[in-house]
């Protein structure tokens, strides 16, 4: 049978053992976990997995169905095409935005990144007391005016009453 790739999400009330139970059931289907990420979002469990194997979406969903029976977790399964990640033809940057919490901070700032064709490759936001924090890793096309983008981001952030800084990723080649 041919190998297919499946994207799986598990979301809901956190408790010990969710990852162990999920991965045990996937291993039972012979699914190979190729990528995964898990975090707690305001205390809610959130996990995304991409796995390959010969099982179908239906079989995977059936195997994970026991996770959902008490109603505290939801699971989705969807076959996705195999996509080879292209080599980045840009430069890596880190964007930090922090300030008083209000709606619209993320959308306004990342719109500036999108406007110049920048691609966000990783993003986290945190709310700690009154402090809202966004940190994004960004690939910027080689021809982007980086100083101009920095100014544009600072202007948008300033209009929202938050601070922003854009800086290149430092890589130590060993």
């Amino acid at each position: 049978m041919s190998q297919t790739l499946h994207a799986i999400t598990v979301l809901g009330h956190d408790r010990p053992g969710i990852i162990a139970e999920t991965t045990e059931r996937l291993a039972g289907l012979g699914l190979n976990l190729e990528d995964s990420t898990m975090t707690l979002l305001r205390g809610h469990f959130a996990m995304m997995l991409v796995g390959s194997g010969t099982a179908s979406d239906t079989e995977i969903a059936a195997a994970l169905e026991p996770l959902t029976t008490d109603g505290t977790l939801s699971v989705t399964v969807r076959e996705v095409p195999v996509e080879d990640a292209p080599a980045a033809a840009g430069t890596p940057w880190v964007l930090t935005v922090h300030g008083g919490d209000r709606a619209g901070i993320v959308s306004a700032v990342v719109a500036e990144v999108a406007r110049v064709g920048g691609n966000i490759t990783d993003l986290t936001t945190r709310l700690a007391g009154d402090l809202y924090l966004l940190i994004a890793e960004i690939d910027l096309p080689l021809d982007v005016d980086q100083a101009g983008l920095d100014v544009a981001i600072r202007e948008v952030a300033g209009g929202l009453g938050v601070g922003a800084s854009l800086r290149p990723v430092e890589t130590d080649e060993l």
Partner: protein
Amino acid sequence: MSLLDDPVARWTELDLGVAGRVLDVVRAPDPVLSTPTSAVDPTSPEVVQLAADLVATMRVSPGCVGLAAPQVGVSSMVFCVDVSQHPKVRDHHGTFVLVNAEVVSSSRNEKGREGCMSVPDLTGDVKRASRLVVTGHLPGTGERVEVEANAFEARALQHEIDHCAGLLFLDRVAGAHAVYARQTYL
């Protein structure tokens, strides 16, 4: 330079001649923390009092190895440092306050996890120079001094100089997964 010859190592807050007051520490997102400070007169009575207040506030704050004026709500280029009691410390200059400090040279970047009294709920991985030369003025006399710092003291100095530039450690973290929730603050 031996410690006896080093005016920074010799300095204590008693040199200021005024008693420090314990001030409230400002937390992000207070805008004073994101505002670059201006240079001030290190001999002015206000700066001398501020220096004493910073040291007094640092002293009563568990685990605190440095405190910058913006952290007590004052937008001035003044901070205090004392890493002498910290387990990570190597050599150090004891307690001192620098006014109008600037980095002269830095090298040997190393990553370390930092916290901040003004960001009590988060910590983050930040790359900082572990060899550092800083100039500034001592409060009171206004004497211009040069501090050669390394390792943890160098990190503390850069963290405080950043505060004076309106930057938090959050503006220096290595990436999207380099910030961590702190469960308890010391």
